[in-house]
């Protein structure tokens, strides 16, 4: 058997999101175990450990699970990721952080053990700006964009990128921090009401999203001009505002809804047999889908690693090699029953981050559904790549890491 610890959080301020994500993650592996007998004949175990989104508990979870031949980690928290980056390097266990964590970990030559496919925070920012360019016929000159962000490592991530992009495209960027937890955002939204920015980008998490969307509705800010990062794109974020949230947009790096053949299998093998994590209450929700997608990436990585190692019983080091050789194609996604659900990407020793593409989804309040309104959008690598490199170099210098891959 292979062990993929699931460092989840189902309690605390972000428990509502963590719940869905963890269920998706578990269910995907349950399906593989039930339907295919695991991967390469090996069952995948996903022992859960509650972190409550708390870094210290995260470390405790990591320490308590790593002894049991843990193959790979997905801590689902930027804070915990930062804690674990040095630790996984020391212990030689890979860590996969899809859509969160440290952006510059994309540079595999420095971050040997960390992977963040298929997209990272900076990709997200760039994809959103690209979308705005599209909406505006390719021109954002003279426009103003406000960034409302969670005043933490996560929320501050896109600032550098957006500053670069504003130089490039000639829009004005105004930064509006919100301290977590962020139930009370009156001043921020009054400021927006006065300044009337053309667009507002939301890098929020937890209750901050719900409050922001409600406040935006309160000041009658046009919902379609409010665009969140993918972590501000769950049902839980929009539902409290009810009909007022109609038209709100967010980025996403995976498909939404249940219109995929995959769910048929899930129903027969997992839901109907009563093996669903958390009773199957969240199947098809945005965060559930994302947890499932994270599991998919890891599962594919395992498969690849088994191929390379020539044995189904792989080690963590072999897992890393598998991830570095991972390639997920359009065809493979179709094969998995999830056509178009995720973007095709290929990792390498150098590139631990994939293609970084994202789509834009929009909330339909009457149908209570997210609708995809764009195809995958390619982020602006010209802007991002140098930034990533600079940050990775700095990290390498600080920690005397010798870049590899050459």
């Amino acid at each position, binding site marked *: 058997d292979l062990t993929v610890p699931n460092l989840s959080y189902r309690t605390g301020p972000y428990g*509502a999101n963590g719940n869905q994500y963890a269920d998706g993650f578990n269910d995907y592996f349950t399906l593989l175990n039930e339907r295919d007998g695991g991967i390469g004949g090996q069952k995948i175990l996903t022992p859960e450990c509650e972190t409550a989104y708390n870094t210290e508990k995260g470390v405790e979870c990591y320490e308590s699970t790593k002894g049991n031949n843990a193959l790979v980690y997905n801590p689902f928290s930027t804070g915990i990721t930062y804690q674990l980056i040095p630790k996984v390097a020391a212990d030689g266990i890979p860590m996969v952080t899809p859509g969160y964590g440290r952006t510059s970990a994309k540079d595999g030559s420095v971050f040997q053990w960390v992977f963040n496919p298929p997209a990272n925070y900076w990709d997200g920012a760039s994809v959103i700006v690209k979308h705005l360019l599209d909406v505006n016929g390719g021109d954002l000159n003279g426009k103003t964009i406000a960034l409302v962000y969670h005043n933490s490592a996560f929320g501050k991530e896109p600032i550098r990128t957006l500053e670069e992009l504003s130089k490039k495209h000639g829009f004005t960027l105004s930064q509006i921090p919100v301290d977590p937890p962020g139930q*009370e955002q009156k001043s921020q939204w009054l400021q927006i009401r006065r300044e009337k920015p053309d667009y507002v980008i939301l890098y929020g998490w937890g209750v901050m999203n719900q409050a922001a969307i409600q406040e935006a509705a309160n000041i009658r800010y046009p919902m379609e001009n409010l665009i969140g990062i993918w972590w501000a794109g769950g049902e839980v974020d929009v539902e409290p505002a009810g009909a007022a949230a109609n038209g709100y947009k967010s980025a996403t790096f995976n498909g939404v809804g249940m219109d995929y053949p995959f769910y048929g299998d899930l129903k027969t093998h997992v839901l109907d047999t009563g093996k669903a994590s958390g009773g199957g209450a969240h199947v098809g929700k945005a965060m559930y889908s994302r947890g499932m997608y994270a599991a998919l990436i890891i599962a594919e990585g395992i498969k690849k690693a088994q191929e390379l190692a020539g044995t189904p019983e792989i080690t963590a080091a072999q897992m890393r090699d598998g991830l570095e050789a991972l390639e997920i194609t359009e065809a493979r996604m179709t094969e998995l029953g999830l056509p178009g659900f995720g973007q095709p990407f290929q990792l390498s020793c150098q590139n631990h981050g994939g293609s970084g593409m994202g789509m834009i989804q929009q909330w339909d309040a009457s149908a209570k559904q997210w609708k995809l309104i764009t195809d995958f959008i390619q982020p602006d690598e010209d802007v991002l790549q140098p930034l990533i490199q600079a940050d990775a170099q700095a990290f390498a210098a600080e920690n005397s890491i010798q870049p590899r891959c050459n």
Partner: protein
Amino acid sequence: MEQLLYASEVLVNGLMAGVMYSLVALGFVLIFKASGVFNYAQGVLALFAALTLVGIQQGQVPFAHLINAMTGAHLSSFGWTVPSLLAILLTALVMVGLAILIETLVLKHLVGQEPIIMFMATIGLAYFLEGLGDIMWGADVKTLDVGLPQGISDTAEAWTAALTGYGFFIDRLDIWATVIAALLVAALVAFSQYTKQGRAMRAVADDHQAALSVGISLRFIWVMVWSIAGFVALVAGIMWGTKSGVQFSLSLIALKALPVLMLGGFTSIPGAIVGGLIIGVGEKLFEFYIGPMVGGATESWFAYVLALIFLVFRPQGLFGERIIERV
């Protein structure tokens, strides 16, 4: 001129935000007045009340998750919805029941202990209720709708626009909050100053032993006060829950209420309101004028610093009872 108008808009909204803080602060004041206990669990009480309200309203099966996990059943909902008013009443009853439980299981055994011990006990209680609320009603974000309107008030906007040329933003929910807060405060002040029970409540806060010795039943007073505090928590929970959904973070609004309390005085009901207004206005104006210079998000600490400065001049808060120092 425009700056000034903006500033007054911020000011008005600050006042309103302050009222929302006060709603939470009131619960603290009541319990402090009655027992000298700083009830850390007040925020969680608000969360618990709001969760229960939503649960009752939407006909959720309590402990569904636990039962499902233990027995493999698939319970979730009774399939009915209860009208808002009835649901609020039922929730109030639940809060009374909770008060009785808290009294018999916790407070009764801690008569005469130092305030800090009681404070700790309320923290333990907060933990317990947090876990209980989650187990009972689930950890999801829930939508709370009891029919309170939300969003910009057109009348206020039109009216201010006609007057000044700039339409102010005033949230309808805030207007409601103000009205409700005013009623609550009036009722509570009357209760604590002019009724026998109110007097007994203050007596208990001063000296448990002496109160016992004149035949005041601590148990009754505590049940009563915790019930009222539970009701106030329910009101606060409704307001804040309507604003941003019912979920764990609701309990953290307690942190916004603390500076209000400090400034107004732990023992003063009107203080909770005045403190709220000052804090609301202060932090919004500070964020408006100074925030941009220092990078914003000053609201997390400004209220505390403001209250601290006030306290240095009046150690018992604006309206708090004077701290009697004699030898």
